[in-house]
């Protein structure tokens, strides 16, 4: 079943003193439930712009984006916000944890915008997620006191705490060393599989990209199948 469906998606940005900047020029993409997709591309190729569209954070200039067959453009902003909270989990390159909160409180943040039952059980659910990423001993540690790898594991727990059907990872290993990055990707793969969620990873690291079933390359504002290259271990 198609979870996310993009056809002819373009995105352009107005500039102050020149013609509009055309970042995406016609993106077609289908993401199935439980899918594994990597999108690679050079810096400035529009990877993050595409991720924002996939995550319902941004709207395309033209084209269609459907989530579960429902056109996103027709939704009211509030419904889109709710749908994003319920269906999409984000993992960012810079982790983006809230500094003053503990690991458990950070993981519980998405539950503040969820259904009543999940909100009232937020402490329990956050603890459970942190156990799954091996951080049960760091529940009450402030985000700023965690190592980079631990912060990214907290971010993964946060992305999954509402059991989203789509996880969007933007350079998830970009701020980690190779070994920690590999462990983080193992964990992300495992918890996404456990949750039955689709995982779309945006990266310029081919080793990270090659973990996915499908690797797509963003070139000149369009997605192309990427030829697999053996990456030395």
């Amino acid at each position, binding site marked *: 079943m198609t979870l996310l469906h993009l056809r002819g998606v373009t995105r352009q940005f107005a500039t102050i003193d020149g013609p509009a900047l055309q970042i995406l020029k016609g993106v077609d993409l289908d993401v199935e439930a439980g899918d594994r997709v990597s999108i690679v591309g050079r810096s400035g190729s529009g990877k*993050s712009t595409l991720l*924002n569209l996939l*995550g319902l*954070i*941004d709207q395309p200039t033209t084209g269609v984006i459907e989530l579960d067959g429902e056109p996103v453009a027709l939704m009211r*902003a*509030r419904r889109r*916000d*709710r749908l*994003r*909270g*319920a269906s999409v989990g*984000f993992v*960012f390159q810079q982790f*983006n944890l*809230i*500094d*003053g*909160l503990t690991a458990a*409180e950070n993981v519980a*943040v*998405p539950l*503040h*915008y*969820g*259904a*009543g039952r999940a*909100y*009232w059980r937020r402490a329990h659910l956050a603890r459970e997620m942190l156990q799954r990423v091996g951080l049960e001993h760091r529940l009450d540690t402030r985000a700023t006191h965690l190592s980079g790898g631990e912060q990214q594991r907290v971010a993964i727990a*946060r992305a999954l705490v*509402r059991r989203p059907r789509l996880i969007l990872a933007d350079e998830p290993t970009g701020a980690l060393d190779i070994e920690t990055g590999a462990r983080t990707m193992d964990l992300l793969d495992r918890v996404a599989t456990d949750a039955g969620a689709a995982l779309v990873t945006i990266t310029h690291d081919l080793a990270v990209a090659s973990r996915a079933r499908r690797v797509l390359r963003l070139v000149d504002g369009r997605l192309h199948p990427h030829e697999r290259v053996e990456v030395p271990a």
Partner: protein
Amino acid sequence: MTDVVAAIQDAWTELRIHRGRVLMSLIGVTVAIAALTASVAVGELARSTLLVSMESNRGRPATLTLWIGPAAAEAPSAADHVAALDAIDAAVERYGVEYASARTNAHLALAQGMGVQVEGVEPDFAVMRHLGVAEGRFLVESDRARLAPAIVVNRGALDALGGGGMDVHRTVEIGGTTAVVVGVVDRGLGDEWPQVWMLPRDVVRVADAAGTAGTISGMQLEAWVPEEMAEDGLRMLAQDIRSALPGSTVDGNRQDWQAFEGYDPLLPLQLTLVGTAVVILLLGALGLITVAVVSIRQRVREFGIRRAFGASRGRIFTAVMLESVVGTVVAGAIGIALCIFVYRLPVVQQTLTQGIGGVELPGFPMSAAITGLLVSAAVGALAGSIPATIAVRSKVIEAIRF
């Protein structure tokens, strides 16, 4: 419901995280709310104290006073006074006036040849004129049956009797008659001049026995009635007394301070106090807004994260607004508590009650506390709306990549 609780929880968490900044920015609000609450409280206290003072002097609204003039040119006899008292009692009873007192005065010898002004009043007079006793009690109905008249004295009269403590149940010679002191009044400063209160019929009886019935001056009726009955009440009471005492003159009018329309002696004081407090409050709010606007720009990334995980613009606005309101309400509550604490300090109580002895200082005015709390919430909402608008205008994409 969950959304509301979660929004409050978010606000509280943010206050906890940024407590240092919040504390610094709210000190101004705390001081401002304390100043505002104190101003309102002082205004209220001054108003209630002056009100009690005015009611002590002129009676409560509406107080009707009727003067009964003698029928003959010569000084009225004791029998004439008794007849006037009978007429007053009959009129009061006929119209069911709840609080009324006949009033008369006589100059009688008290001690060592010293004279004292004795005021004849009924038991209701204490309620009608806020006449509180420091010890013992005021005159009561059962005093009418006493063989030795009951008297209430002030501090000046007590001093004239030889001073000492405010002891009651002592007997004194007044106008040659033995009377029993049943209560002592202490009205503070200005109460040094000796004064004695006695039932009107006892005044007539004692003065008559002393052969000084002629010194009894002006028989009056004072009645405290509902304001809407003042006009008719005055006319009917006068008519009844006049018909019971043929040939006598009966004049009357309203004596309480509210009889003088448009007169509010406290308005200038209250306006000055509240005006000063509002200026302080505006300065406090300005400081709060400045800190809030500066700090909100440092939290753009956090709003982006929250938006990414499902928070709507409305939710972000509410959370930032609530942070401000919760903060200022807590600061306001602290300011009010500070105010109440200072108000209850013995040294402050002594200062406030100086010169108004006999008038009990009321508790801290609830209206001042409620005003302070409402104003602090309003300041929070006002100061929160600006950063909240900035917060919802921040773009999620830029915020996350901040």
